[in-house]
């Protein structure tokens, strides 16, 4: 099958499930209320899908690795840490927690600042070894995770209840205002990433060959890392952390599509992650009847897939 028809099938699946989410049970009496609830939810899933898929793919290309995703750099843990810290410092009822714009701005700003710090540390050192950067991310992620769990132990139970809402990936308490704020932001960032698509193709060759072909490897790596950080910040702030999802969709996209071109892969991975988020969430709601959450399902499937990659020696 051609890549083009595979992409069309994915688009079709995404549209069908989006239609199911929005359309089922709609009638002339309830449509205003239902649409105002359902449309932001679907849009949030689409935005998060695109952000996670594209950031993971670009990140894997520049690190030359099939199992790394930005969440390994500690971004998820940092998000949890930020939320916990805000609740501890200002209390569960402060505007920093309850005001969506404010909370979103804080999360994004902290994540960007963290990535800048990490990257500048890396790019200013003499020996640039990407693995060191990643290891640093993993360790800092552990550190953030441990501090967060320590702080939640000390926390007032009421505060913890407010905190918990933002810590788990959830599509049922989407913040409507945030969705419409993120949409144009995401559009700009993925357009910037897409502009790099042909340069990213050259990254399939190794760094020396890319340099020989006139690419400023350091500059492009920096650009992609910053763009990925923005994307991850957006998706985490929007729907919470989804650990294995990026790994799952990038690898499935690479197995599904024959092309090496990021022009195709970026679209493919976005469509794949959007359609699987929509389909997965639909299954969770309508078949499991909310008895589980999507992130549990994703981490379950993603974990199994990760192990099977290990066993099949697919990890380059």
């Amino acid at each position, binding site marked *: 099958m051609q890549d083009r028809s595979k992409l069309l099938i994915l688009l079709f699946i995404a549209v069908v499930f989006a239609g199911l989410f929005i359309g089922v049970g709609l009638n002339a009496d309830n449509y205003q209320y239902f649409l105002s609830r359902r449309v932001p939810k679907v849009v949030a899933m689409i935005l998060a899908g695109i952000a996670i898929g594209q950031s993971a793919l670009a990140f894997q290309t520049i690190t030359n690795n099939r199992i790394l995703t930005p969440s390994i750099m500690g971004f998820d843990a940092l998000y949890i840490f930020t939320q916990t810290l805000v609740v501890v410092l200002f209390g569960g009822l402060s505007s920093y927690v309850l005001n969506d714009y404010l909370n979103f701005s804080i999360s994004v700003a902290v994540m960007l600042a963290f990535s800048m710090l990490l990257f500048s540390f890396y790019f200013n050192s003499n020996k640039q070894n990407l693995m060191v950067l990643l290891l640093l991310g993993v360790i800092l992620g552990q550190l953030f995770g441990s501090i967060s769990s320590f702080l939640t132990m000390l926390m007032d139970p009421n505060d913890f209840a407010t905190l918990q809402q933002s810590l788990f990936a959830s599509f049922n308490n989407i913040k409507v205002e945030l969705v419409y704020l993120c949409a144009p932001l995401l559009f700009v960032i993925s357009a910037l990433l897409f502009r790099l698509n*042909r340069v990213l*193709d*050259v990254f*399939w060759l*190794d760094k*020396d060959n890319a340099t*020989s*072909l*006139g690419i400023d490897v350091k500059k492009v790596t920096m650009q992609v890392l910053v763009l990925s950080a923005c994307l991850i910040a957006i998706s985490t702030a929007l729907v919470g952390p989804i650990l294995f999802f990026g790994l799952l969709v990038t690898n499935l996209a690479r197995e599904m599509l024959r092309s090496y071109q990021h022009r195709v892969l970026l679209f493919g991975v976005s469509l794949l992650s959007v359609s699987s988020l929509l389909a997965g969430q639909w299954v969770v709601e309508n078949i499991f009847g909310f008895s589980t959450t999507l992130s549990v399902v994703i981490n379950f499937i993603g974990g199994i897939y990760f192990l099977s990659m290990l066993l099949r020696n697919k990890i380059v």
Partner: protein
Amino acid sequence: MIKLEKLTKFFGHSVVVNKASVEFEKGEVTSIIGPNGAGKSTLLSMASRLISKDEGQVFIDCKEIAEWDSKELAKRLAVLRQANSITMRFTVREMIAFGRFPYSQGKLTQQDQTIINQAIEYLDLVAIQDKYLDELSGGQRQLAFIAMVIAQDTDYVFLDEPLNNLDIKHSLQIMRNIGRLAREMNKAVVVVIHDINFASCYSNKIIALKKGQVVAQGEVNDVIQAHVLESIYETPFHIIELNGKRMCTYY
């Protein structure tokens, strides 16, 4: 012409390349020889901007390497390292097409296709152009990489150990083609090479490095001499002349 002046590189406190001054001319094959750890690859990497230099200067067509725009330089100078780890499945043709990146930034024109075809024909890769790289033998893969460099169409070509892990037939094929690149296309080809006999038979000039210093350079017959090689490799050498070419035995 490429001119290296007092090029120096430190790794920590130890000097890996020490004030190396050499020149590479168009139309010639220059081989860089020397024992392991002599700084051959480091020298080549500095001269082709893959790693930064600590002291000294590199002039490419009379312009210092730091003043070159990376994109423009990619149209003048191509470099191929020994370990080429590729994490994606490409066909031979798709990979060779990357050689046109400096000119078309990935949007191949008709002219690019013509040049890619020429590179494929030049190295006799027509039959395998649609095969995937992981289906090829080491020698064929190396030829495909060299074809990419040819498609890049640069005046200067740097190859770091192009014969690494190749059998005699493929080594010969690659060295002959390297000679043709210099002769027929008037390129300056610089190879880092371990096999002294290949260096002696297929190059115009030889540069010998030892402990980071240029210890001998010049025409083949100036460098391929028993006492010169003995001091470089600390091994007894015996030189024989066959059909006007010098060969070394050191067994």
